[in-house]
């Protein structure tokens, strides 16, 4: 099949942002309900997208429904702009919506993310769209949708605390490191998608609107700007984020989320920022050695 490119750079034969208008209206109505009921998972008639489940079909549908021609899109996958998932979704919207794209967090108006929140603080005029695999935080504790739905209706979240307690009983600390459950605006317990718990504090009172799309599970949920997002914990085992003993090997940052990179088959490894844009900005601002000197 061949495709042609129209005068405006958009591939011919597609509606703006790929989805048809009725689908967009249905998703838009779900988004409005999701914002009005922070943390509640709104069912929606998720469509088949030209990519497999697990590649961000939920996030793509939310992005397609909110995108305007004036937007600038950034897409990240585990913090990186240059991985397969991020590159292909960026190309998808370049083709079907002809929107400009960027890798700079500060230049984007819509940021679609898989499993990270950018290190740079987001602004009020930005929207963060998460790709979500399993939206139900209680799913692995209670597989029946009828039951989890009742538990949300009754705010019956004791089971989640039992799970965190069992972590402590077994490991001496809460061993959940990603998809760490949060309570939104003191009502719904929500899965922040498999972001590392390092990112949980950024969700609390974030100036940007946060939208979550789960394509296979057909759910949309949201956290409005300046909304209380609290990570579940215990008085004697307060919530903590991950820390690393060494700084980023590339930019020297000590306050970012670091990925472990295997360098050879003899145990060689290094730690570097998972947020490539933040890391590059720091590298350009000064050499790692300078930063290391300052840090020590």
């Amino acid at each position, binding site marked *: 099949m061949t495709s042609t490119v129209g005068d405006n750079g958009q591939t011919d034969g597609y509606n703006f942002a790929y989805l048809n*208008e009725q689908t*967009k209206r249905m998703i838009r*109505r779900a988004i409005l309900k999701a914002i009005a009921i922070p943390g509640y998972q709104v069912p929606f008639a998720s469509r088949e997208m030209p990519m497999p489940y697990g590649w961000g079909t939920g996030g793509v549908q939310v992005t397609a429904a909110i995108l*305007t021609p*004036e937007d600038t899109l950034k897409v990240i996958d585990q913090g990186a702009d240059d991985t397969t998932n991020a590159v292909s979704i960026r190309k998808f919207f370049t083709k079907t919506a002809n929107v400009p794209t960027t890798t700079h967090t500060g230049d984007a108006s819509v940021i679609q993310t898989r499993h990270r929140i950018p290190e740079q603080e987001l602004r009020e005029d930005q929207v963060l769209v998460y790709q979500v695999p399993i939206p139900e935080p209680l799913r692995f504790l209670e597989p029946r949708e009828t039951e989890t739905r009742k538990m949300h*209706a009754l705010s019956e979240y004791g089971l989640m605390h039992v799970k965190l307690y069992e972590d402590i009983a077994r490991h001496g600390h809460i061993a959940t490191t990603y998809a760490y459950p949060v309570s939104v605006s003191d009502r719904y317990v929500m899965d922040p998608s498999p972001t590392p718990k390092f990112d949980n504090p950024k969700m609390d009172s974030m100036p940007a609107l946060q939208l979550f799309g789960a394509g296979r599970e057909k759910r949309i949920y949201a956290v409005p700007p*300046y909304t209380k997002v609290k990570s579940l914990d215990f008085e004697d085992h307060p919530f903590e984020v991950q820390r690393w003993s060494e700084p980023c090997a590339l930019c020297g940052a000590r306050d970012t989320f670091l990925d472990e990179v295997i360098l050879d088959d003899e145990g060689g490894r290094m730690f570097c920022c998972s947020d490539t844009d933040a890391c590059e900005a720091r590298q350009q601002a000064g050499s790692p050695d300078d930063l290391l000197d300052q840090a020590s």
Partner: protein
Amino acid sequence: MPVASDALGSAFQDPPLDSSRMFRSIMNAIAWPGVIKKVDTLSVPPEPLTAVTADCLLTLVDFDTPVWLDHRARTDEVSAYLRFHAGCPIVDAPERAAFAVIADPQSMPSLAVFAQGTAEYPDRSATVIVQTGALSSDEGVTFRGPGIASRRVFSAAGISETVWADIERNHQGFPLGVDVIFSGPNCLAACPRSVGIAVSETV
């Protein structure tokens, strides 16, 4: 501004782009309760529907969403306009409506007559679009809740204290309840159910 060519008025000229921009305004209004969004209206609906209300409806409603019109909005022209341009059913029973239009806020029914959602599906509730006079952030009631850093002052001309008290009562049922969109002259604002309203608070 496009001129109405016939009795059915006119709708969006470029529906995908026009509705994307309009939706962004509505989404931001819901996400930032009480913040007034300017709207460059595009549709030419029959009286008493305003262009802002019509743009909202054209963006959000279709054959899936029954619409209820209050006594003033329920004219043959408005019904025909919405049926033709949006394809939505017009219903008599307010509890069946997904969207409701109030053109006469003086005789606004209690929000309790609309669908509130259920404990397990709080999203199965109505969104009410109220046509008002000027919107202002200088004085009025005080909003608190998600989307608001500390508090936000808001008023809509034509919305009486009784109506505010009714909205406040409705929002106490959170997560059940009705989301309200205020459709002002060339602007809109919203008060979703998550918002707590203090009517008599002095600022």
